[in-house]
């Protein structure tokens, strides 16, 4: 038996020994820790996409630092072109919107943040690369009017541009 064999070791003093098994009681804690780490770091996509957005590529990009201080504005061709046509549309949160809805959206997004952080709010424009600048400019003008001046043109990161 295993017990007899281990008794032969000199430094073992105990007379009776149970079969050695690793204590796994702390294993769930470790896994839970991993789990919480992922739950905290990972960002869930909160809105379903109503518009198709293929982001343009850029090499000189910055990382968006604080996810909680970023609001997204999506512009692109509707996913359901049969129903909504193929003109570029603006999506705010979960619904289609027009340029006129943006001031209200900005106000609501500001309200949702603590007062100290409101000035750091960034509006990330996720615009499809084939969109014409007209609608983007309208959105930018509207953001300017609402004093939402910090914007970010979302892009895909490439290490070198191929032109």
């Amino acid at each position: 038996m295993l017990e007899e064999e281990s008794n032969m070791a000199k430094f073992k003093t105990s007379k009776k020994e149970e079969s050695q098994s690793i204590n796994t009681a702390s294993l769930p804690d470790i896994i839970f820790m991993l789990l919480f780490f992922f739950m905290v770091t990972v960002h869930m996509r909160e809105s379903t996409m109503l518009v198709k957005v293929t982001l343009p590529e850029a090499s000189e990009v910055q990382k968006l630092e604080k996810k909680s201080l970023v609001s997204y504005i999506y512009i692109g061709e509707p996913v359901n072109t049969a129903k909504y046509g193929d003109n570029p549309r603006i999506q705010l949160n979960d619904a289609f919107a027009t340029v006129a809805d943006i001031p209200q959206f900005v106000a609501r997004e500001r309200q949702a943040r603590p007062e100290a952080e409101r000035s750091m709010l960034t509006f990330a424009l996720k615009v499809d690369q084939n969109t014409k600048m007209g609608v983007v400019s309208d959105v930018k003008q509207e953001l300017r009017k609402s004093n939402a001046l910090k914007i970010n043109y979302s892009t895909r990161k490439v290490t070198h541009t191929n032109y």
Partner: protein
Amino acid sequence: MAKRAVPEINAGSMADIAFLLLIFFLVTTTMNTDFGITRILPPPVKNKNATVDVKDRNVMKILINSHDLLLVNGKPGNLNTLAQDVVKFMTPHPNDSRYPEVKEEYFPQLGKKVMMTKGIVSLKNDRGTSYKMYIEVQNELAKAFDILKNQESIKYFGLPYKDLVGKKKKALINKLVPIRISEAEPENVGGGK
């Protein structure tokens, strides 16, 4: 003292449950980090008719038309050389009338006066310009200002901008190389919507 066996709940399966949860989160969530070009829009203008007088030599005019073609200072531009052109334009050239004016500014952190260019890059696009082209131009401009920042950073600290440690140093470089891009209101000359 006689040891009494404490009845223990078998926690062996707890790890399995936690693993299951962990794998569920790993699968359902997207770990995509967002990248982009951050820009500060100019504050809204109160008086629409008020014009700011800027000398012609201080402005580098970049136009993108509805066919995604570039016009730099009245001449057809090239996207490949745009970044270099902007770097050349924004580097202070004292006593050269082909380049923008310079002014001296005192920096207490450096303890001396530094030549600063008065140049501005003016970017104007048409309503029919594609977003892709616009971002490509913005990317080139960002590249140009990155080069300028690196030049200053190496000059004063011996390190490229991204390797600088400390907010103070970065703030100083950002002050030395302000991102002077002016975006005009778009025009609708190309007939795009």
